[in-house]
């Protein structure tokens, strides 16, 4: 019996010792979409470089990176929020990425002005409204959501959610503390219910008649409309998409990126850059837009047909690092105004 146990454990440890070949890339990923698996497989086929991934929440992965320090096996960190990338930069975890190919692949206004992170896709945090109960002409800006014509009609998820924190950070950066605090307390008064659920649940709540307008990320609408479940497609069809702050002189709709950063001691730096060049290239960008309904970071690529049908929109040109630097202030606004 004893021998079996020893045998079992030694076999296991043998089996679990991975060979340290350098033809690989190690990624810590907050993204866990099916399209990512496809991208990494395609990259492996094209280059022979193996992509290893650990998926967890971004804050936990940053903590893990910090603790691993120079011993970390990770080359790249990827998440869905510029604010968290900025957090990693603040923690001193990343190094600048230099590549002419990436530089020419990515839209200028999406880039990190400090050169630490690379955007691959972006999404808009926009409004959806009930086709039955809301006139499009009543919608205009994020600021207008504080208007009491929306009393008891607005749906949004909790302030613990990173997308809402990013939105509030952008508003804080654009409008200043006093205005944004007043805005938030009025918005809370307009809630149809306490914040809960995910973005898709807000759309379903409109379909169910629990509220009339909601703040959601663009690609969730795409996912609902392309669902295999007819009831979800119906829910998606019961609402329309609206890009706020598009008028003359207005700053544009709040966006956020999915982006990569390279760790300070990346053991496979060259491979990592190759991967980023690949992911920002036209082929991979097309794969992204057609599978996840995100907007491409590469201006040569068009969004998916469905997303294009919502029309073009003007992006808020705010430096996306502000989504990180203003986060703590944004949290305090949430807490002080009772946005749960």
């Amino acid at each position, binding site marked *: 019996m004893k021998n079996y146990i020893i045998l079992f*454990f030694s076999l*296991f*440890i043998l089996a*679990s*010792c*991975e060979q340290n070949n350098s033809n690989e890339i*190690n990624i810590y990923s907050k993204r*866990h*979409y*099916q399209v990512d698996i496809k991208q990494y497989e395609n990259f492996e086929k094209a280059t022979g470089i193996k992509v*290893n*991934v*650990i*998926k*967890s*929440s971004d*804050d*936990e992965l940053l*903590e*893990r990176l910090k*603790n*691993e*320090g120079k*011993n*970390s*096996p990770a080359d790249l960190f990827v998440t869905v929020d510029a604010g968290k990338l900025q*957090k990693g930069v603040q923690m001193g975890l990343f190094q600048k990425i230099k590549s002419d190919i990436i530089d020419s692949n990515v839209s200028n206004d999406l880039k990190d002005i400090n050169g630490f992170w690379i955007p691959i896709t972006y999404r808009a945090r926009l409004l959806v409204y009930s086709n039955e109960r809301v006139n499009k002409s009543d919608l205009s800006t994020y600021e207008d959501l504080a208007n009491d014509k929306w009393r008891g009609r607005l749906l949004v*998820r*909790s302030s*613990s959610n*990173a997308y809402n*924190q990013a939105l509030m950070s952008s508003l804080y950066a654009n409008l200043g503390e006093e205005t944004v605090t007043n805005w938030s307390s009025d918005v809370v008064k307009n809630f149809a*219910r*306490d*914040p*809960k*659920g*995910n973005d*898709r*649940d807000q759309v*379903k*709540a409109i*379909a*169910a*008649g*629990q509220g009339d307008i909601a703040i959601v990320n663009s690609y969730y609408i795409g*996912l609902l409309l392309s669902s*295999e*479940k007819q*009831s*979800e497609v*119906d*829910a998606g069809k019961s609402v329309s998409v609206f890009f706020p702050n598009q008028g003359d002189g207005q700053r544009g709709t709040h966006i956020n990126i999915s982006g990569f950063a390279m760790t300070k001691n990346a053991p496979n730096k060259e491979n990592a850059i190759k991967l980023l060049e690949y992911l920002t290239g036209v082929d991979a960008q097309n794969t992204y837009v057609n599978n996840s309904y995100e907007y491409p970071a590469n201006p040569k690529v068009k969004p998916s047909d469905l997303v294009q049908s919502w029309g073009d929109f003007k992006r808020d040109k705010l430096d996306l690092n502000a989504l990180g630097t203003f*986060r*703590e202030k944004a*949290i*305090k606004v949430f*807490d*002080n105004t009772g946005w*749960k």
Partner: protein
Amino acid sequence: MKTVKFQDKVALLLFVLIFSPILFLLVKSFNQDTETLQYLFKNLLFDYSINTIYLVLITSFFSLIIGIIPAWYVSNYQFAGRRIIDLILYLPLAIPTYIMAFTYSELLSFTGPFKITYDFLQIEILGILLAFSLYPYIYSVSRISFSLFGSRYYDMAKNLGLNAYQTILKVVLPLSRPAILSGLFLVVMEVLNEYGAVKYFGVNTYTIGIFRSWNSMNDSGAAIQLSSILLFMVAFLFFVEKYFNKNKRFSFSKNTQLASLNSPNNSMKFLIYVICLIPIILAFLIPVLFNLINIFSSYEDINFERLLNLTFNSFTVSLIASVLILIVSTFFLYNEKMSNSKVYYYINQFISLGYSIPGAVVALAVVISVTSLDNLDDNIKLLGSFSVYFLILIYAYIIRFMAVGKSPIKSSLEKYPDSYNNSAKNLGLSNFKIFQKIYFPINKYAFFTALTLVFVDIMKELPITLILRPFNFDTLATQTYEFAIEEMIPLSSIYSSVIIIICCILLIFLKMFLDKSNVFRN
């Protein structure tokens, strides 16, 4: 003068190994900035605590109701299908709380089969859903406790003029209190640790506060402090309960005849079926059928190679960690039993504390402690390789789930009087021989119970696995979760079903094994 015995040295080493991350956490919480903590206290913690208490109360209430009442009828009445009903009543333990929550969210949503327009994301509904997965903790302990009452207790109650209702209230429940409380303790711990489902339901609990300070306020120090406070509160409650029950240890008198099963009349039978079928249908059949039906609708998308691979991963980590937990907890508990010193008693209390901290924080504590070892010397390079992270993962499971493994072994060991070891010692047997010849055979059911419960818990575990796993290492639980949070429930169903099926098989096996042991009357 006695030299320190070998086993005491091993014990000390093991204790340091298991307790040091928790100790690290406690020490670290004292040298952190308290700004965030003060902010949270001022603004949020009152609300968060109220929500936590309310949620704990709802889940406890429903777990007690659907745990104790069926246990009472199954233990005392004979009716057709009794054994199968008894068996199924345990099985919701195989369904992780997040799968329960996702399943019902799909069913109760507007886009679900019933087009429900009511907003189901309510704290009360969450509390009931959690009770669905957690009540078996209460059911199992109540079943054992109710089955062990001898007829003498009932005869006495009858002689004292108590009716059936009064007997339950005044005799059965007070006598079963320690057992039920130990089950309830596990339920409460699970609720305190719940993260995914509470976040989805928009219920801000204390654990949400821990993650808010870590994730949103960028202050892992505050998260550590909050976890330490939680740990102290749980430890305090635990010791208070111990203190008040100190003089109330019950040993069931063995020579009393076990009461025979009653034959209910027809209306009683009807009542029994209704009472037992409610938890069976709601907490087991509906989620299981829902998942199985989903598999059929997404059959062509199933990647069987990956499924096999993840099943192997889940199985391996669960098996290794649960065997180690079994060995370590038996070692400590047995030493407590055999040793005259109080030291082992305290060790046993301390190493259970990991269960009161959210899994993600246990993971953080482990990473921090291993890192500090790493930083001692430049030549030490622990972090980074697959095998090290694999070991760290197992290590974290052990810290977190030690309490689950200990509890059945402890209660089983306590049943046997110390006179056993005295006579064995008089016969000149060593401690190890006594264990081999006496304690192992008579406690084997408890060991098997401990192994199964820990295995099932690790199979379902999520936060620790997500944070500490090595590269490309997915388990059934992590894959279920990744699909589910993207609302790809049909795709997640095959993975969740495999978790449920494996855990069910083990629980059924355990139940049959225990039935053979005559722990229960049949």
